[in-house]
Protein backbone atom coordinates (compact mmCIF):
# COMPACT_ATOMS: atom_id res chain seq x y z
CA UNK A 1 0.00 0.00 0.00
CA UNK A 2 1.29 3.42 -0.84
CA UNK A 3 1.02 5.63 2.16
CA UNK A 4 3.01 8.71 3.04
CA UNK A 5 1.63 9.12 6.50
CA UNK A 6 4.04 7.08 8.64
CA UNK A 7 1.93 7.68 11.76
CA UNK A 8 -1.11 5.90 10.42
CA UNK A 9 -1.82 2.51 11.93
CA UNK A 10 -1.03 -0.48 9.73
CA UNK A 11 -2.65 -3.69 11.00
CA UNK A 12 -0.63 -6.87 11.23
CA UNK A 13 -2.64 -9.51 9.42
CA UNK A 14 -2.10 -13.26 9.30
CA UNK A 15 -3.81 -15.27 6.59
CA UNK A 16 -4.38 -18.98 7.12
CA UNK A 17 -5.01 -20.46 3.70
CA UNK A 18 -5.34 -23.92 2.21
CA UNK A 19 -2.72 -25.21 -0.18
CA UNK A 20 -5.08 -26.27 -2.93
CA UNK A 21 -7.37 -23.30 -3.51
CA UNK A 22 -6.59 -20.02 -1.79
CA UNK A 23 -2.80 -20.43 -1.84
CA UNK A 24 -2.95 -21.12 -5.55
CA UNK A 25 -5.43 -18.26 -5.88
CA UNK A 26 -3.03 -15.90 -4.10
CA UNK A 27 -0.31 -17.12 -6.46
CA UNK A 28 -2.55 -16.20 -9.38
CA UNK A 29 -3.06 -12.75 -7.88
CA UNK A 30 0.71 -12.30 -8.02
CA UNK A 31 1.22 -13.68 -11.50
CA UNK A 32 -1.69 -11.53 -12.69
CA UNK A 33 0.18 -8.49 -11.31
CA UNK A 34 -2.76 -7.43 -9.18
CA UNK A 35 -1.62 -5.20 -6.33
CA UNK A 36 -2.91 -5.79 -2.83
CA UNK A 37 -2.15 -4.78 0.74
CA UNK A 38 1.26 -5.87 2.00
CA UNK A 39 0.08 -6.20 5.59
CA UNK A 40 -0.80 -9.81 5.14
CA UNK A 41 1.47 -12.73 6.01
CA UNK A 42 0.26 -15.90 4.39
CA UNK A 43 0.59 -19.26 6.11
CA UNK A 44 -0.03 -22.27 3.93
CA UNK A 45 -1.96 -25.23 5.29
CA UNK A 46 -2.71 -28.58 3.71
CA UNK A 47 -6.44 -27.95 4.15
CA UNK A 48 -8.80 -25.62 6.00
CA UNK A 49 -9.70 -28.67 8.08
CA UNK A 50 -6.16 -28.50 9.49
CA UNK A 51 -6.56 -24.92 10.75
CA UNK A 52 -6.96 -25.58 14.43
CA UNK A 53 -8.68 -22.84 16.42
CA UNK A 54 -5.67 -22.77 18.76
CA UNK A 55 -3.54 -21.51 15.85
CA UNK A 56 -5.86 -18.52 15.57
CA UNK A 57 -5.60 -17.92 19.32
CA UNK A 58 -1.81 -18.04 18.98
CA UNK A 59 -1.88 -15.56 16.11
CA UNK A 60 -3.71 -13.08 18.34
CA UNK A 61 -1.39 -13.91 21.24
CA UNK A 62 1.57 -13.06 19.02
CA UNK A 63 0.26 -9.64 18.15
CA UNK A 64 -1.94 -10.09 15.09
CA UNK A 65 -4.53 -7.32 14.66
CA UNK A 66 -6.59 -9.35 12.24
CA UNK A 67 -6.82 -12.81 10.75
CA UNK A 68 -7.98 -13.99 7.35
CA UNK A 69 -8.99 -17.61 6.91
CA UNK A 70 -9.63 -18.90 3.45
CA UNK A 71 -9.95 -22.18 1.63
CA UNK A 72 -11.75 -24.05 -1.11
CA UNK A 73 -15.41 -23.38 -1.81
CA UNK A 74 -17.81 -25.98 -0.38
CA UNK A 75 -17.81 -29.15 -2.53
CA UNK A 76 -14.39 -28.17 -3.95
CA UNK A 77 -12.21 -29.48 -1.14
CA UNK A 78 -9.15 -31.41 -2.32
CA UNK A 79 -9.85 -33.87 0.50
CA UNK A 80 -13.60 -33.92 -0.17
CA UNK A 81 -14.84 -32.69 3.20
CA UNK A 82 -12.12 -30.77 5.07
CA UNK A 83 -13.77 -27.41 4.49
CA UNK A 84 -17.17 -28.70 5.65
CA UNK A 85 -15.63 -29.79 8.96
CA UNK A 86 -13.80 -26.47 9.20
CA UNK A 87 -17.00 -24.55 8.58
CA UNK A 88 -18.75 -26.27 11.50
CA UNK A 89 -15.80 -25.55 13.77
CA UNK A 90 -15.74 -21.87 12.77
CA UNK A 91 -19.45 -21.46 13.41
CA UNK A 92 -18.97 -22.60 17.00
CA UNK A 93 -15.62 -20.86 17.50
CA UNK A 94 -16.73 -17.50 16.16
CA UNK A 95 -19.73 -17.40 18.50
CA UNK A 96 -17.60 -18.48 21.44
CA UNK A 97 -15.12 -15.66 20.81
CA UNK A 98 -18.00 -13.24 20.57
CA UNK A 99 -19.30 -14.57 23.89
CA UNK A 100 -16.01 -13.84 25.66
CA UNK A 101 -15.87 -10.36 24.15
CA UNK A 102 -13.39 -10.73 21.28
CA UNK A 103 -14.42 -8.62 18.30
CA UNK A 104 -15.21 -11.24 15.65
CA UNK A 105 -14.74 -8.60 12.93
CA UNK A 106 -11.03 -9.21 13.47
CA UNK A 107 -11.40 -12.60 11.78
CA UNK A 108 -12.45 -12.69 8.14
CA UNK A 109 -13.56 -15.98 6.64
CA UNK A 110 -13.75 -16.52 2.91
CA UNK A 111 -13.76 -19.11 0.17
CA UNK A 112 -11.26 -18.29 -2.60
CA UNK A 113 -10.66 -20.79 -5.37
CA UNK A 114 -7.46 -21.23 -7.37
CA UNK A 115 -9.04 -19.24 -10.23
CA UNK A 116 -10.11 -16.29 -8.07
CA UNK A 117 -6.92 -14.23 -7.98
CA UNK A 118 -8.90 -11.02 -8.19
CA UNK A 119 -11.20 -12.08 -5.36
CA UNK A 120 -8.17 -12.75 -3.13
CA UNK A 121 -6.85 -9.22 -3.70
CA UNK A 122 -10.31 -7.87 -2.94
CA UNK A 123 -10.67 -9.97 0.25
CA UNK A 124 -7.27 -8.86 1.53
CA UNK A 125 -7.78 -5.18 0.70
CA UNK A 126 -11.22 -5.04 2.25
CA UNK A 127 -10.12 -6.98 5.33
CA UNK A 128 -7.10 -4.75 5.87
CA UNK A 129 -9.35 -1.68 5.58
CA UNK A 130 -11.71 -3.24 8.11
CA UNK A 131 -8.86 -4.04 10.54
CA UNK A 132 -7.40 -0.56 10.06
CA UNK A 133 -10.71 0.94 11.10
CA UNK A 134 -10.92 -1.34 14.13
CA UNK A 135 -7.47 -0.14 15.19
CA UNK A 136 -4.83 -2.08 17.11
CA UNK A 137 -6.05 -5.06 19.12
CA UNK A 138 -5.39 -3.20 22.37
CA UNK A 139 -7.45 -5.41 24.65
CA UNK A 140 -5.42 -8.42 23.57
CA UNK A 141 -2.12 -6.51 23.66
CA UNK A 142 -2.74 -5.70 27.31
CA UNK A 143 -2.95 -9.42 28.05
CA UNK A 144 0.21 -10.12 26.05
CA UNK A 145 2.15 -7.49 27.98
CA UNK A 146 0.85 -8.85 31.24
CA UNK A 147 1.84 -12.41 30.30
CA UNK A 148 5.39 -11.44 29.38
CA UNK A 149 6.13 -10.61 33.01
CA UNK A 150 5.31 -14.12 33.99
CA UNK A 151 6.69 -16.18 31.12
CA UNK A 152 10.37 -17.01 31.35
CA UNK A 153 11.84 -17.85 28.02
Amino acid sequence: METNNTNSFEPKVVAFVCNWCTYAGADLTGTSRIKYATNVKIIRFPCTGRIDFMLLMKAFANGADGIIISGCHPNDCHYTSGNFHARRRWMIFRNLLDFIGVDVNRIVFSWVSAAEGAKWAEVVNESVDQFRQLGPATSYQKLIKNSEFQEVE
Partner: protein
Amino acid sequence: MNNLQQKAQQLLESGNYGLIVGYEKGTSGKARPVFIRKAEHASKLIFDESCDQNIAVYLYRQEIKHNKKKVIVANHHTLKSIVELAAENQVFDGDFMVLAFAENGDIIELNTFEEIEKHVATLYHGLTEAEAAMMKKIEDMSLEDRWAFWENEFSKCIKCYACRASCPMCYCPTCTVEINQPQWISVPSHTLGNLEWHVMRAMHLAGRCVTCGQCGKACPLELPIQLLTYKVALDSKQFFDSVAGTSICADNALAIFKPEDHENFIR
Protein backbone atom coordinates in the same frame (compact mmCIF):
# COMPACT_ATOMS: atom_id res chain seq x y z
CA MET B 1 -32.41 -48.15 56.32
CA ASN B 2 -34.03 -46.67 53.24
CA ASN B 3 -34.76 -48.34 49.91
CA LEU B 4 -31.46 -47.37 48.34
CA GLN B 5 -29.38 -48.68 51.23
CA GLN B 6 -31.34 -51.93 51.31
CA LYS B 7 -30.96 -52.34 47.59
CA ALA B 8 -27.21 -51.68 47.79
CA GLN B 9 -26.83 -54.17 50.59
CA GLN B 10 -28.67 -56.85 48.62
CA LEU B 11 -26.59 -56.24 45.53
CA LEU B 12 -23.28 -56.49 47.38
CA GLU B 13 -24.39 -59.53 49.38
CA SER B 14 -25.48 -61.32 46.22
CA GLY B 15 -21.84 -61.35 45.15
CA ASN B 16 -22.71 -60.29 41.62
CA TYR B 17 -21.58 -56.74 42.20
CA GLY B 18 -18.26 -55.64 43.67
CA LEU B 19 -18.55 -51.89 43.93
CA ILE B 20 -21.20 -49.25 44.36
CA VAL B 21 -20.40 -45.68 43.39
CA GLY B 22 -22.81 -43.27 45.00
CA TYR B 23 -23.12 -40.35 47.36
CA GLU B 24 -22.60 -40.04 51.09
CA LYS B 25 -23.15 -37.17 53.47
CA GLY B 26 -20.23 -34.77 53.30
CA THR B 27 -19.34 -31.71 55.30
CA SER B 28 -21.37 -28.49 55.46
CA GLY B 29 -24.55 -30.01 54.04
CA LYS B 30 -22.94 -31.18 50.81
CA ALA B 31 -22.89 -34.69 49.44
CA ARG B 32 -19.67 -36.33 48.28
CA PRO B 33 -18.96 -39.43 46.21
CA VAL B 34 -18.48 -42.68 48.04
CA PHE B 35 -17.19 -46.05 46.89
CA ILE B 36 -18.73 -48.98 48.70
CA ARG B 37 -17.30 -52.48 48.50
CA LYS B 38 -18.73 -54.09 51.66
CA ALA B 39 -22.42 -54.73 52.33
CA GLU B 40 -22.14 -53.42 55.90
CA HIS B 41 -21.12 -49.98 54.56
CA ALA B 42 -24.25 -49.68 52.43
CA SER B 43 -25.90 -47.53 55.11
CA LYS B 44 -23.57 -44.67 54.13
CA LEU B 45 -25.44 -44.17 50.85
CA ILE B 46 -27.76 -41.22 50.47
CA PHE B 47 -29.67 -39.71 47.61
CA ASP B 48 -31.34 -36.32 47.90
CA GLU B 49 -31.21 -32.90 46.22
CA SER B 50 -27.74 -32.26 47.65
CA CYS B 51 -26.41 -35.04 45.39
CA ASP B 52 -25.92 -32.86 42.33
CA GLN B 53 -22.38 -33.90 41.48
CA ASN B 54 -21.85 -35.64 38.16
CA ILE B 55 -20.11 -38.88 39.13
CA ALA B 56 -20.01 -40.47 35.67
CA VAL B 57 -16.38 -39.30 35.66
CA TYR B 58 -15.46 -42.25 37.91
CA LEU B 59 -16.76 -44.94 35.58
CA TYR B 60 -13.70 -45.07 33.36
CA ARG B 61 -11.02 -44.27 35.97
CA GLN B 62 -8.28 -46.90 36.18
CA GLU B 63 -8.91 -47.54 39.89
CA ILE B 64 -12.56 -48.32 39.21
CA LYS B 65 -12.35 -49.95 35.81
CA HIS B 66 -10.86 -53.25 36.99
CA ASN B 67 -13.55 -53.76 39.63
CA LYS B 68 -15.97 -56.59 39.32
CA LYS B 69 -19.34 -55.48 38.02
CA LYS B 70 -20.17 -51.99 39.27
CA VAL B 71 -23.29 -50.13 40.28
CA ILE B 72 -23.58 -46.39 39.95
CA VAL B 73 -26.18 -44.27 41.70
CA ALA B 74 -27.01 -41.68 39.08
CA ASN B 75 -28.64 -38.28 39.13
CA HIS B 76 -29.87 -36.83 35.83
CA HIS B 77 -26.50 -35.21 35.02
CA THR B 78 -24.70 -38.51 35.50
CA LEU B 79 -27.25 -40.34 33.34
CA LYS B 80 -26.79 -37.94 30.43
CA SER B 81 -23.02 -38.20 30.73
CA ILE B 82 -23.21 -42.00 30.67
CA VAL B 83 -25.20 -41.81 27.42
CA GLU B 84 -22.61 -39.45 25.90
CA LEU B 85 -19.72 -41.63 27.11
CA ALA B 86 -21.48 -44.63 25.56
CA ALA B 87 -21.79 -42.75 22.26
CA GLU B 88 -18.03 -42.16 22.38
CA ASN B 89 -17.25 -45.79 23.30
CA GLN B 90 -15.68 -44.88 26.64
CA VAL B 91 -17.91 -47.16 28.71
CA PHE B 92 -19.20 -50.56 27.74
CA ASP B 93 -22.63 -52.06 27.73
CA GLY B 94 -23.17 -54.50 30.58
CA ASP B 95 -20.11 -53.32 32.54
CA PHE B 96 -22.22 -51.65 35.17
CA MET B 97 -25.72 -51.18 36.43
CA VAL B 98 -27.31 -47.80 36.98
CA LEU B 99 -29.62 -47.02 39.85
CA ALA B 100 -31.73 -44.03 38.83
CA PHE B 101 -34.69 -42.48 40.57
CA ALA B 102 -38.22 -41.84 39.38
CA GLU B 103 -39.84 -38.58 40.38
CA ASN B 104 -41.70 -40.26 43.24
CA GLY B 105 -38.38 -41.54 44.61
CA ASP B 106 -38.72 -45.13 43.39
CA ILE B 107 -35.49 -46.81 42.38
CA ILE B 108 -35.20 -47.70 38.70
CA GLU B 109 -32.68 -50.35 37.69
CA LEU B 110 -31.10 -49.72 34.31
CA ASN B 111 -28.93 -52.54 33.03
CA THR B 112 -28.32 -51.81 29.37
CA PHE B 113 -27.47 -48.67 27.42
CA GLU B 114 -30.76 -48.94 25.62
CA GLU B 115 -32.65 -48.76 28.91
CA ILE B 116 -30.54 -45.81 30.01
CA GLU B 117 -31.15 -44.02 26.73
CA LYS B 118 -34.89 -44.58 27.06
CA HIS B 119 -34.89 -43.26 30.62
CA VAL B 120 -32.80 -40.21 29.67
CA ALA B 121 -35.33 -39.36 26.94
CA THR B 122 -37.86 -38.71 29.71
CA LEU B 123 -35.57 -36.15 31.40
CA TYR B 124 -35.37 -32.43 30.78
CA HIS B 125 -32.47 -31.40 28.56
CA GLY B 126 -31.33 -27.80 28.63
CA LEU B 127 -30.44 -25.07 31.05
CA THR B 128 -32.31 -24.33 34.25
CA GLU B 129 -33.98 -20.94 34.55
CA ALA B 130 -31.18 -19.58 36.73
CA GLU B 131 -28.53 -20.77 34.25
CA ALA B 132 -30.42 -19.34 31.29
CA ALA B 133 -30.66 -16.02 33.13
CA MET B 134 -26.88 -15.98 33.68
CA MET B 135 -26.33 -16.66 29.99
CA LYS B 136 -28.70 -13.88 29.03
CA LYS B 137 -27.05 -11.44 31.42
CA ILE B 138 -23.71 -11.93 29.66
CA GLU B 139 -25.12 -12.01 26.15
CA ASP B 140 -26.92 -8.72 26.77
CA MET B 141 -23.68 -6.97 27.76
CA SER B 142 -21.78 -4.86 25.25
CA LEU B 143 -18.70 -6.39 23.64
CA GLU B 144 -16.37 -4.32 25.87
CA ASP B 145 -18.26 -5.29 29.01
CA ARG B 146 -18.17 -8.96 28.07
CA TRP B 147 -14.42 -8.76 27.55
CA ALA B 148 -13.96 -6.93 30.86
CA PHE B 149 -16.12 -9.52 32.62
CA TRP B 150 -14.22 -12.52 31.27
CA GLU B 151 -10.82 -10.83 31.61
CA ASN B 152 -11.56 -10.35 35.29
CA GLU B 153 -12.74 -13.95 35.68
CA PHE B 154 -9.84 -15.48 33.76
CA SER B 155 -7.30 -13.39 35.68
CA LYS B 156 -8.36 -15.26 38.85
CA CYS B 157 -7.92 -18.76 37.39
CA ILE B 158 -5.06 -20.67 39.03
CA LYS B 159 -4.98 -23.43 36.38
CA CYS B 160 -5.65 -26.21 38.86
CA TYR B 161 -7.58 -28.01 36.09
CA ALA B 162 -10.31 -29.05 38.51
CA CYS B 163 -12.74 -28.21 35.68
CA ARG B 164 -11.02 -30.78 33.52
CA ALA B 165 -10.75 -33.42 36.26
CA SER B 166 -14.43 -33.10 37.14
CA CYS B 167 -15.71 -33.30 33.57
CA PRO B 168 -16.78 -36.79 32.45
CA MET B 169 -16.08 -35.83 28.85
CA CYS B 170 -12.44 -34.80 29.51
CA TYR B 171 -10.96 -38.27 29.35
CA CYS B 172 -8.01 -37.87 26.95
CA PRO B 173 -5.01 -39.69 28.45
CA THR B 174 -2.77 -36.85 27.25
CA CYS B 175 -4.48 -33.49 27.32
CA THR B 176 -3.28 -30.63 25.13
CA VAL B 177 -2.19 -28.77 28.27
CA GLU B 178 0.34 -31.52 28.99
CA ILE B 179 1.92 -31.16 25.58
CA ASN B 180 4.97 -28.91 25.72
CA GLN B 181 6.28 -29.15 22.18
CA PRO B 182 4.65 -26.90 21.17
CA GLN B 183 3.52 -25.42 24.44
CA TRP B 184 -0.09 -24.75 23.54
CA ILE B 185 -1.13 -23.59 26.97
CA SER B 186 1.34 -21.62 29.08
CA VAL B 187 2.40 -23.18 32.36
CA PRO B 188 2.20 -20.09 34.60
CA SER B 189 -1.31 -18.82 35.06
CA HIS B 190 -1.72 -15.43 33.48
CA THR B 191 -4.87 -14.05 31.92
CA LEU B 192 -3.82 -14.72 28.32
CA GLY B 193 -2.93 -18.36 28.92
CA ASN B 194 -5.99 -18.84 31.11
CA LEU B 195 -8.20 -17.45 28.38
CA GLU B 196 -6.66 -19.82 25.85
CA TRP B 197 -7.14 -22.74 28.21
CA HIS B 198 -10.81 -21.97 28.77
CA VAL B 199 -11.50 -21.37 25.07
CA MET B 200 -9.78 -24.65 24.27
CA ARG B 201 -11.69 -26.56 26.92
CA ALA B 202 -14.99 -25.19 25.66
CA MET B 203 -14.13 -25.89 22.01
CA HIS B 204 -13.14 -29.47 22.79
CA LEU B 205 -16.53 -29.93 24.48
CA ALA B 206 -18.51 -28.55 21.55
CA GLY B 207 -21.40 -30.90 20.85
CA ARG B 208 -20.36 -33.09 23.79
CA CYS B 209 -21.23 -30.99 26.83
CA VAL B 210 -24.35 -32.25 28.61
CA THR B 211 -24.64 -28.91 30.51
CA CYS B 212 -24.27 -30.47 33.95
CA GLY B 213 -22.20 -27.49 35.09
CA GLN B 214 -19.82 -29.71 37.04
CA CYS B 215 -16.80 -27.69 35.86
CA GLY B 216 -18.20 -24.56 37.48
CA LYS B 217 -19.15 -26.43 40.65
CA ALA B 218 -15.64 -27.92 40.89
CA CYS B 219 -13.88 -24.57 40.42
CA PRO B 220 -12.26 -23.57 43.73
CA LEU B 221 -12.49 -19.91 42.68
CA GLU B 222 -16.12 -20.26 41.67
CA LEU B 223 -15.52 -18.87 38.20
CA PRO B 224 -18.62 -19.23 35.99
CA ILE B 225 -16.69 -21.27 33.43
CA GLN B 226 -19.61 -23.61 32.87
CA LEU B 227 -21.19 -20.79 30.85
CA LEU B 228 -18.53 -21.25 28.15
CA THR B 229 -19.44 -24.87 27.62
CA TYR B 230 -23.14 -24.00 27.85
CA LYS B 231 -22.54 -21.54 25.03
CA VAL B 232 -21.04 -24.20 22.75
CA ALA B 233 -23.77 -26.65 23.74
CA LEU B 234 -26.51 -24.16 22.91
CA ASP B 235 -24.85 -23.27 19.61
CA SER B 236 -24.51 -26.96 18.69
CA LYS B 237 -28.21 -27.33 19.28
CA GLN B 238 -29.10 -24.20 17.36
CA PHE B 239 -26.81 -24.76 14.37
CA PHE B 240 -26.62 -28.52 14.10
CA ASP B 241 -29.61 -29.73 16.11
CA SER B 242 -27.19 -31.76 18.18
CA VAL B 243 -27.86 -32.28 21.89
CA ALA B 244 -25.22 -34.25 23.76
CA GLY B 245 -26.32 -37.03 26.07
CA THR B 246 -29.49 -37.96 24.24
CA SER B 247 -28.38 -40.80 21.99
CA ILE B 248 -25.98 -43.71 22.43
CA CYS B 249 -25.14 -43.80 18.74
CA ALA B 250 -25.02 -40.12 17.70
CA ASP B 251 -21.82 -38.61 16.30
CA ASN B 252 -20.33 -35.43 17.77
CA ALA B 253 -21.52 -32.24 16.15
CA LEU B 254 -17.97 -31.34 15.10
CA ALA B 255 -17.03 -34.81 13.89
CA ILE B 256 -19.66 -34.80 11.16
CA PHE B 257 -21.00 -32.21 8.74
CA LYS B 258 -23.82 -31.50 6.38
CA PRO B 259 -23.21 -29.83 3.02
CA GLU B 260 -26.20 -27.60 3.76
CA ASP B 261 -24.84 -26.27 7.08
CA HIS B 262 -25.77 -22.64 7.01
CA GLU B 263 -23.63 -19.73 8.16
CA ASN B 264 -23.70 -16.06 7.23
CA PHE B 265 -20.15 -14.85 7.76
CA ILE B 266 -18.04 -16.56 5.09
CA ARG B 267 -17.63 -14.36 2.05
